[in-house]
Structure formats: structure tokens, C-alpha cells
């Protein structure tokens, strides 16, 4: 009897101590993020790079696209070139094979040449032409690139025709249907007015990267999809250029439930922006009056990554913004009526984040208990921060915090050691119903965190819009009291699996309610747990 009890205790302990995520090195994923740090401390060097999880060939397996930096010389010559034709500095597309290994298909997919004058930053994924194949938009310091997915394993650079090259220093981007016309539009954040000619160093004898305040702010870009393969820059007429910022992250959700997707922009070293969608093609920046601009004490934030999802299962989209150390990650709880309250301390995230610098971020239910947990890629901006403040670290472990009914508690992230984490994308790489993570690391290969899973139940949906955009971006999906806002955007520089994942705990079935961007409401009762389901938008409301 005693022996049995002991065994139960041991098994229970083992179960409790089992890691939520395990770091793996999938065969074939041989990418290195080459950011090329120099003594010049050009700011771009510490900012890349993005990662996207997408099924580019619709074989049901998630593939991985990684954005590379480029070669930086010390000092840079004019005109600036980053040696992007050199394979070392290519962006890379890795096709996932059935056995979980990856094959580099960059060249055959037509993604090899990233543009000599482009230093890579981020990536957005969306099917902008509703042809059923995900397209890739790459942001750069330089000109951005839109790759149309030809549906045959190859892509075509359609930037010029589409008119979405942008310019300056673009960072995060995302596809969003802001006017509910069934076609995905494109929002691009830009960091600041900066170039290598006007670069400088800060920190006196320490010689560090300068804080953002040293450079002028700039505007973000909103492109409207005309539906003919071209986009119109509507930034000015939509009211986006009314505010200049130092934008790094962007995320989308309909926070006030008026049926139109709103835009949150994480700004560095200043107030955050919440562009409220007026429903008539224009936006009004409302962060300050909505209570989502500053910290609880009215201090500006070093906003970097952002996630715009519901962490406390009240059905409303909350905002979590990652920051620098000595600030704490901002948790803006959506109180309804268009108002947010700052709840970093109440959620326990204040204590977990005050010594860390956070970038890519996601709210994903890693243990399928019905509550979205938090993963943050971490690592300081300054590669010599330890010399300045020994209590801070350049390389950090990522943060994995489990959500216990709205309060976050740190757990082992599964990382093998500290690193300079940047981008992070989330999805179910091995289609087992448990969410995985790919995180980019400066100067190193990406880190792949595989979820070993457990006994809880789950559901994963692929939305197929008919009246709405084909990806269903902007849909509000409720499952057994949980809510997700359909998007591939958010985090930092990255694009996540567009499929919507829900942990169901011990429930073996679910009620699913979808509010499509078209206005169609759809309900599915008694949906069996533990399956991947495609939900097609009804043609009629």
C-alpha cells in the first residue's frame, strides 16, 4: 500500500515537473540570423529578425520563413549595401517534411534575393488575393518586399506592381481587413527617421546603441487593398499619419466590439498608439483617453512587441506590451466601453518582467487548460549592458508564464540557456493539438520549442472566409467561454500560424461561435474535441 502511494507521489511529481515546452533542433533548420554587429553601433544591428509560421504549399504542415539581417560594414559606405545576394544573408524558407524535418526551399521558391540595399527586419503573412495560398510581406530597413504565392511552391516579387515598397525603416507589419471589404489590407510600422549616415553612439565611454529619443519619430503606413493586386497608400486619409511615433510592434483586434478591427502600435520610448477604427475608412488615435498609452504612473513605455488577445476569458481583447528592464511589461485589461486599465501588477507580470527586455510575445494556451499562457522572447537591446549595469543581462531566457485564471506564474521555458531573443511566432508545428514556438536569436540559429503535450483536450480551426477575407482575419471566435481574434499578426516582427487554437481542459466537446468580419454570426454546437476543423463562412448571414 505504502509502496503504491509512493509511486503515485513520484508519478504526480513527475507530471507536475514535466516541462511545458522542450527545446529541439529539427533537422534541416540550419538558419543563422546574421545581424552583423559593428563598433559603429548602428541601431539596425540589434533589432532583427522576424519569423513566420505558414503552410505555404497547403500540405497541412507548418513551414518556417526566417528573415535575415545583412552584412554591415564598419563604417557603412554610401550607397548602403548589405550583401544580401550572398547566401549567408538570404532570408530562408524551410518546408516541413512529413517526418518533422525541414528542407531549405528558398532558392526554388524564388525568395533568394532580398535586395542589396535592404537590411531585413520582419515578416507578415496573409492571403491578400484570396487565392487560398499565403503570401509573404518582408519588411526591411530599405524597401519592403511583397512575395505573391503562385500556388506551385514558388513566389513572385510583386512589390512594384502592388505599390507596397514603403521605405525608411519598416519593422513589424500585418495583414488586416480594416474596412471589412473581404480583402486584406496591410499595416506597416516604421521605427524612426534614421540611416547609417546619421547614426551615432551613446553611453560615453561605454559606447552603446542610442535610445530612440535621439532620433526623430516617423509615421506608419496603411495600405488599402484595391483587389486587383495593387494597394493604395491611405495612411494620410485614414488618419494614420496624424501621429508620428517610434513604432516597433503592431497587433489587431476589435477592442470595442463595433465590428471593425482596431490597431494597436507599440512605440519605443513614448506613448503607445491605439488607432480606433471609425468604421468609415478612418482611424482616431485614442490610446491616452482609452487608458492604453502609458504606464499606471503615466510614464512612457519602451513598447517593443505586442499581443492583442483576451487573457482573462472575459471575451474582450486585452493588450500586453513588452518593454525594457526597469519598466514592466504593460498589461492593459479591456474593461469594456472602450476603456483599459493597467494591470501589470495584479496579473503578476510586473514581478516577472521588471528585470527583462521583452520582444516577441504571444498569448497561447500551452497546457490546453482553457487559459492563454504567455511566452516572451527576451534579451537586452545593448550587447554590453552588463558593463553598464551588472544586474542586467544581454542574453536572457525567454519567459514562459502560465495563466492561472488571469494571474501569470513563471515556469521553465525549456530553453537550454540565455540568448538574445527577438522575434517569436506561435503555432502547432507537429499538428498534435499543442502549441509550439519558434524564436529568433541574434547571431544564432532560431530556437524551436516543441510542446510535448498532455491529456487535456483541444480544438484547432482554420477559418475560410467567403464574404469576409479568405483567412477570416478579424473574426472573433468564442469557444467554451474563451475568445480569440483571428490574425497572424502581433508579437514582434513575426507572423504566427493563422489557425486558431483552443485548449479545452477536460471538455470533450465545445460550442463554437464565430463573428465574421462580414457581420455573419455562425454557431456550431457539440463540436468534438481534439480535431483540426476548417470552418467555412456561410454565404448568407
Amino acid at each position, binding site marked *: 500500500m505504502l509502496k503504491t502511494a509512493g509511486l503515485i507521489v513520484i508519478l504526480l511529481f513527475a507530471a507536475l515537473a514535466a516541462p511545458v515546452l522542450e527545446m529541439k533542433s529539427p533537422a534541416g533548420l540550419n538558419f543563422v540570423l546574421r545581424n552583423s554587429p559593428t563598433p559603429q553601433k548602428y541601431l539596425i544591428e540589434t533589432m532583427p529578425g522576424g519569423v513566420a509560421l505558414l503552410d505555404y504549399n497547403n500540405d497541412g504542415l507548418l513551414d518556417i520563413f526566417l528573415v535575415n539581417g545583412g552584412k554591415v560594414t564598419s563604417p557603412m559606405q554610401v550607397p548602403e549595401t548589405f550583401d544580401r545576394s550572398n547566401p549567408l544573408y538570404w532570408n530562408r524558407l524551410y518546408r516541413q517534411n512529413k517526418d518533422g524535418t525541414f528542407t531549405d526551399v528558398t532558392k526554388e521558391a524564388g525568395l533568394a534575393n532580398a535586395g542589396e540595399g535592404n537590411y531585413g527586419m520582419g515578416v507578415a503573412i496573409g492571403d491578400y488575393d484570396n487565392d487560398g495560398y499565403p503570401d509573404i510581406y518582408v519588411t526591411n530597413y530599405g524597401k519592403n518586399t511583397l512575395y505573391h504565392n503562385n500556388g506551385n511552391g514558388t513566389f513572385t516579387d510583386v512589390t512594384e506592381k502592388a505599390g507596397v515598397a514603403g521605405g525608411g525603416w519598416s519593422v513589424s507589419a500585418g495583414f488586416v481587413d480594416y474596412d471589412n471589404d473581404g480583402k486584406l489590407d496591410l499595416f506597416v510600422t516604421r521605427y524612426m527617421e534614421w540611416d547609417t549616415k546619421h547614426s551615432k553612439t551613446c*553611453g560615453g565611454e561605454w559606447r*552603446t546603441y542610442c*535610445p530612440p*529619443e535621439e532620433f526623430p519619430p516617423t509615421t506608419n503606413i496603411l495600405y488599402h487593398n484595391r483587389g486587383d493586386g495593387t494597394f493604395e497608400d491611405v495612411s494620410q486619409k485614414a488618419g494614420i499619419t496624424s501621429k508620428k511615433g517610434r513604432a516597433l510592434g503592431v497587433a489587431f483586434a476589435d477592442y470595442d466590439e463595433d465590428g471593425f478591427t482596431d490597431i494597436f502600435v507599440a512605440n519605443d*520610448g513614448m506613448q503607445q498608439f491605439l488607432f480606433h477604427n471609425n468604421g468609415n475608412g478612418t482611424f482616431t488615435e485614442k490610446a*491616452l*483617453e482609452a*487608458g492604453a498609452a*502609458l504606464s*499606471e*504612473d*503615466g*510614464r*512612457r513605455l519602451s513598447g517593443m512587441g505586442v499581443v492583442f488577445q483576451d487573457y482573462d476569458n472575459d471575451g474582450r481583447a486585452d493588450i500586453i506590451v513588452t518593454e*525594457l*528592464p*526597469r*519598466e514592466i511589461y504593460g498589461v492593459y485589461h479591456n*474593461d469594456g466601453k472602450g*476603456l483599459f*486599465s493597467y494591470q501589470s*501588477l*495584479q*496579473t*503578476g507580470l*510586473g*514581478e516577472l518582467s*521588471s*528585470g527583462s527586455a521583452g520582444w516577441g510575445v504571444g498569448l497561447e494556451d500551452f497546457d490546453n487548460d482553457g487559459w492563454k499562457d504567455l511566452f516572451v522572447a527576451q534579451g*537586452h537591446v*545593448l550587447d554590453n*549592458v552588463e558593463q*553598464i*549595469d*551588472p*544586474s*542586467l543581462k544581454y542574453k536572457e531566457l525567454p519567459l514562459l508564464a502560465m495563466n492561472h485564471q488571469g*494571474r501569470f506564474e513563471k515556469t521553465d521555458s525549456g530553453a537550454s540557456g540565455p540568448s538574445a531573443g527577438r522575434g517569436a511566432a506561435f503555432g502547432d508545428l507537429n499538428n498534435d493539438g499543442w502549441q509550439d514556438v519558434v524564436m529568433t536569436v541574434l547571431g544564432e540559429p532560431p530556437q524551436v520549442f516543441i510542446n510535448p503535450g498532455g491529456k487535456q483536450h483541444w480544438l484547432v480551426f482554420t477559418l475560410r472566409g467567403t464574404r469576409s477575407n479568405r483567412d477570416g482575419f478579424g473574426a472573433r471566435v468564442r469557444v467554451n467561454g474563451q475568445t480569440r481574434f483571428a490574425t497572424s499578426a502581433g508579437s514582434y516582427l513575426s507572423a504566427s500560424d493563422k489557425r486558431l487554437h483552443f485548449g479545452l481542459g477536460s471538455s470533450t466537446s465545445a460550442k463554437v461561435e464565430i463573428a465574421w468580419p462580414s457581420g455573419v454570426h455562425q454557431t456550431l454546437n457539440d463540436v468534438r474535441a481534439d480535431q483540426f476543423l476548417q470552418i467555412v463562412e456561410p454565404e448568407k448571414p
Partner: protein
Amino acid sequence: MIRALLCLFLAWQTSAPEAAQHMQAGADAEKSGHFSQAIAEFRKATELEPQAAEPFVRLGQAYLENHDYSGAMAPLKQALKLSPDLRPAHQLLGYALLASGYAAQAVPHLEKAQDEATLGIAQLEAGDLAQAITNLQAALAKHPNDPDLLYYFGRASGLLSKQSIDNLLAAYPDSARAHQAMAENYYVLRQMPQAEKEFLEAIKLRPDIPKLHLELGLVYASSSQWAKAEEAFRAETKLQPGNAEAAFRLGNALLQQGKAKEARAELTRSDGLQPEMPETLYSLGKTASLEGDSTSAEKAWKKVVELEKDGNLAAQAHFGLAGIYRKQGKAEAADREMEEFKKQQNSGVANEQQQP
């Protein structure tokens, strides 16, 4: 300060009209800034009236104005030979000696001149720190905003403090106080791991020393190690239940960990021990807000605004009040508070950036 020293001269009467003419010519040249000419004129006056002290004093003064401190010494010494109690001569000679680096020799002259300010500086330079502090403090009482005096007083206090600590470290290197002193030094230098180590060593030897736990808590707080900070502050509040700062710090550490209820209790206790501290009231408002008690939060923040008028805390309190009113649907009041907040922000008080 030298300008003040050089303006104290007496009316002089002479028996030799020619000497008087040279004195006048010297004074005119001095007034026009022609110090070499003034020196020549005063020198002639000393030659014509070698038994009079005053021409020697004027000659010394002209040398000083010409920044020729060693040149000033001989005539000033001669003046004192002729008239040993002549205060202006003592004062000028003291100044000339001090400016030439002979601080110890300057001291007796400045004592006779009863010039507390320059005497304090000379004593500081001569290493008599305790006397220097006394005299500089007396001079500061008369000229509270004099930047030179503020600087020298600060320097003298710092040196005296260092001297005392050096003595402590030399005589009792393994004592709790020595570890505390070293820890405080590391803390100022932001070398937190070393500061932590020394504070812990001091606490191991003398856990009963007041403020030790508080200071250790501040080390932890500076690197956002709130659980450890809480433990240290809690130890201090046990040791010193009447210490309002310890209660405030403990409250804040609890607040940072989201323990609103406990934080509020501690901050309320601190407020009781030392009422109307804006920092405590602001944090009390935050804990009340965290607990959803907007009435108490409003009350606390209104008090902050009343006490502070402007500055960081006032700006933060306005921001908090705006949030409360917005949630209560009081748009006008919310806008008013937000305007106040923005006003403070624009004046640059509310937004210092934390580095790095």
C-alpha cells in the same frame, strides 16, 4: 569671493601730498583695470611713505587683482610689520597665501581677519575638516546661496565623512559597521552585487543595527528583486516598527508583487507614522486602485496634488485621477485631470527615462 575681499579699504590720510597723488593715481588706474600701472603708483607711495601701512596694503591688493599672489605677499607682510592688527592686511595676506597653496599659513591671518568663509576654505585645504565645517556652516548661514560656499561645505563634509570611515575601516575592518560602510559605498557606485554581499556580512555580525535591512532592501529594489526586498524591509519593520520609511518601502515592495491588500496595510501604517508624505499617499492611491476602491484612491491622489502642486508625483496623481473619472463616466473631470497631467509632462517633470 575675491571681489568682496578687495573692496574693504579705509580712507587714508597722508602727510606727504606727493604720496597722496600717487595713491590717487594708483586708485584710478586700479578702477580702470590697469593693474600694472596701479602697482607702479602704489609702489611710489610706499617709497614716499615707508612708515605707513596703508600704501603697502593697496600695493598688495593691486598685486592680487593682477593675480600675482606671490608678489602681493611682501608688501602685505610689510604692512603687518608696521601695523600688526590691520585686519584688511591679514585678510589679503591670508587670501594670497591660500591662493598660492600655503593654506596652513593662511589660517592664522584669516582667523585674525575673522573671515569665516575664506578661513573655512583654508582649513579645508589644510586638512582641519572639523573646523572647516564649522566656519563654512557659519558663512553659509550668512550667504546661504553662495555656490562656492555650498561646494566647499559639501566637499568638507564628504572628506570628513570619508576620513571617519577610513579610520573605521583601518581600525575595525571586520566590524559590522565597516561592512555597512563599504556596502553603502558600493550602493552609491551602483555596484549592487558587492553592496549586497557587504550588507549581508554586516547583518550576519549585527542583525540589530537599525537601517541595515532597509538598505539591503534598497539594493534588491534597485534591481527589481521584489521578493527579496520584501524580506529585507520586513526585517527592518520588525526591528523598527516606528520607522515610517521602512513601512513605506515594505508597502511598495508588496505592491510591486501585486500583493495589494498587504501593501495597503503597510502603507496605511506608514501614513500613520508620518502623515502627509506624498510618496506614501501616492502609493496608497495605487493600492486602493488595484483593489478597485476608487473612492480611497481618489482621496489619496487628491491629497498628493494638494501637497505637491507640481512635480512627478503630482503629475502621476493627476494621471491616476483622470483614469478614475473616465471610468466613472465623468468625462469633464477626466479631461481636466488629463490636461493637468499633460501640462506637467510638457514641463518635463513627469517623464524622466529610466536607464538603461
